[in-house]
């Protein structure tokens, strides 16, 4: 049988155009946040992954997810907190699969105890220290690692980090202190217990 349906095309088209205008406005609002939140997402991912391409992938994926949920994340502070957590989580997942491959290929190389003391700048600049530092950071508990990365970002106060993560400032301070101590213990083999220059 044949049925004839009359729709009202003007209204339907109008609704669609209105909707698309709303999407465009939403996208512009989101893009305005990217100047600040793009680097934030990338740096968190890069801090976990230590690889530019992987960090870029993960940060973009996290930002796209944030965009899809943007209606519920309009509050800037809530948005940043949500973004940081999702990018950190995605980066950890990516790092885990990468690490499984890596561990099969290389052993944890313990550096030989240095005979001569270094100053901090020389130490931080050495490629051996940097590689060891990255792995030491990777071995830290996640909650310490995220606080260390966020607190080290330029322009972040401890109060801002606390607000982003929904933690008391005291908890952030304590995680920062414990995290740095754990890193220093792991990297202590780079200096001898003689008076540094």
């Amino acid at each position, binding site marked *: 049988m*044949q*049925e004839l349906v*009359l*729709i009202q095309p003007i209204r339907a088209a109008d609704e669609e155009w209105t909707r698309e205008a709303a999407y465009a406005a939403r996208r512009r609002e989101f893009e305005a946040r990217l100047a600040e939140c793009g*680097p934030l997402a990338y740096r968190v991912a890069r801090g976990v992954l230590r690889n530019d391409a992987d960090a870029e992938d993960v940060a*973009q994926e996290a930002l796209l997810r944030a965009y899809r949920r943007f209606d519920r994340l309009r509050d800037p502070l809530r948005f940043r907190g949500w973004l940081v957590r999702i990018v950190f989580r995605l980066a950890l997942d990516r790092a885990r699969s990468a690490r499984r491959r890596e561990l099969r290929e290389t052993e944890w190389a313990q550096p030989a105890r240095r005979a001569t003391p270094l100053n901090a700048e020389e130490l931080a600049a050495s490629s051996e220290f940097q590689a060891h530092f990255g792995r030491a*950071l990777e071995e830290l508990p996640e909650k310490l690692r995220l606080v260390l990365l966020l607190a080290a970002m330029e322009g972040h106060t401890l109060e801002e980090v606390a607000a982003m993560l929904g933690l008391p400032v005291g908890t952030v301070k304590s995680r920062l202190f414990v995290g*740095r101590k754990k890193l220093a213990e792991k990297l202590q083999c780079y200096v001898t217990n003689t008076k*540094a220059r």
Partner: protein
Amino acid sequence: MLCDKYKGALIDAAASGAALPSYIREHVDLCVRCQGVLAARQVVFAAVDMGLHKISNVELPSSFLPDLKSKLVAETPSTRAGIHNWAFVCAAGTLVLALALIGLPRDQGKQIGGESLNRTKKARALANGLRLDPIHVSKAPDRIEVSKARMPQNLSVTNHDPEVLVPREEEEYLEGYYAKLQKRGGMNLILAGRQEVQAKALQIEQIEVKELKIESLDEQAGLQRTNTR
């Protein structure tokens, strides 16, 4: 030994940069071993902070934001319009199916019993129930647009795609709308000629009516239970 006893305090002092308590300070000033421990830890903590700063403040690659913005543009319309198109197709399909299920016995009754059913009224009631716009079958040919005939010759041929009839003045908008949908791989549109969209009696063969019960149109529930054959 005091050196072992104070080691923890030396590490904490190196970590926080805070001053040592005076009784420990006095010992450290006299003890070369503790001075070595404190200095080495201070170097490590400073290197750790430099490492953290370096790792946490990498520059954003120049392609990052342009890439992301193009992904955002691609993201919105396709996903949303896809949902919109499907919602429209599903609603239209449901309407046609409902009409097919309910309308057939009525048409048979009309033909056999001679009772005239007001299909426009029935369809409007159904359409309202589905929150769609009303349905009309042409009784006033002036309101039906004539153009681009690609319509099957016999309207009673089984075809479950809905045709869309619009007043002449709205045809342009409709074409624009459908062109947009089709660009996204959405729907097909057949514009029918005026002459061809005339109500015809249904050609139904081999129908045997054992019992026919006709109920008021206002009783939608009753329609479902109409028993023909």
